[in-house]
């Protein structure tokens, strides 16, 4: 927290927050943590046919240190859980997480000894996308929901 914490509740503060949030929601740099078949739908969404760049989220970063949106795409096993946690912790604030598909959201039909029953048992999640796998339209819908959520974030929550 820096200087902006003094501006909470003031006119300047709320205008600044609006401007920051507007900039952030249209420049989401994503880190795709792709582990399973949902990855194909993610690729489909990211490529020109559905064109995620229309929403300002076109650049996947392959280092979590350069990303601010973590897409967890697919099944996460208990063996992989520490890796996911570490990736999340390497991301700089402000950061958001999307659980992509049934497996990332709840474990899906892998209700068994080796699968994490939803990534929200490891890291905080902002938006869940249901579906096995979800259609690209659902992904874009989730992205727009995340943008609305980012626009509403108050100044004091922003690091």
């Amino acid at each position: 927290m820096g200087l902006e914490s003094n501006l909470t509740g003031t006119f300047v503060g709320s205008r600044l927050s609006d401007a920051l949030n507007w900039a952030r929601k249209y420049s989401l740099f994503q880190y795709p943590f792709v582990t399973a078949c949902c990855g194909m739908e993610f690729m489909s969404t990211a490529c020109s046919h559905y064109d995620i760049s229309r929403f300002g989220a076109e650049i996947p970063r392959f280092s979590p240190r350069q990303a601010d949106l973590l897409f967890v795409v697919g099944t996460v096993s208990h063996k992989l859980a520490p890796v996911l946690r570490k990736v999340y912790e390497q991301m700089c604030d402000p950061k958001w997480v999307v659980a992509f598909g049934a497996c990332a959201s709840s474990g899906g039909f892998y209700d068994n000894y080796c699968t994490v029953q939803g990534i929200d048992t490891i890291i905080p999640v902002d938006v869940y996308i249901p579906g096995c796998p979800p259609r690209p339209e659902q992904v874009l819908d989730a992205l727009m929901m995340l943008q609305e959520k980012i626009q509403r974030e108050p100044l004091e929550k922003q690091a």
Partner: protein
Amino acid sequence: MSKKCVERLQAHFADQILSTHDAAGDETVVLKRDKLLDVLKFLRDEADLAFNLPVDLTVVDWYRIREPRFEVVYHLYSYRTKQRIRLKVPVDEDDARVPSSYSIWPGFDWYEREAYDLYGVVFDGHPNLKRILMWEGFEGHPLRKDYPINKRQPITTLLGEKS
């Protein structure tokens, strides 16, 4: 065709064979554990058998259905004669171990580790018999039928940290 393989085995290892059967032409030989390596070596080295491809190795758990509880299953294929054969070796729960076939087909290395990891059958003589799929510190063998279906063993420490 592979009937001949079974006959060859019967001629050489009559005392090792518990039973034979076939399903849709796929021959199965149920074997004792005692001279398993000799039988496997015979299947690989005889010119008219030449089973040089280790196709699959797995375990069946007959928990509360059949005794002995476990059955180690070998699937073999011969590139030379284009034949397949299936071998089954029943083992008891108290003494769930078979000799490792690593020295005959190194390709069975990871299969044996997987069978050990998920079923707890020990392969004597394997050079590196440790878990292959589950993580270090995992308790039990998850594909055994008496492994609790709701049991979860999450890893609570981060990578690189020692608990």
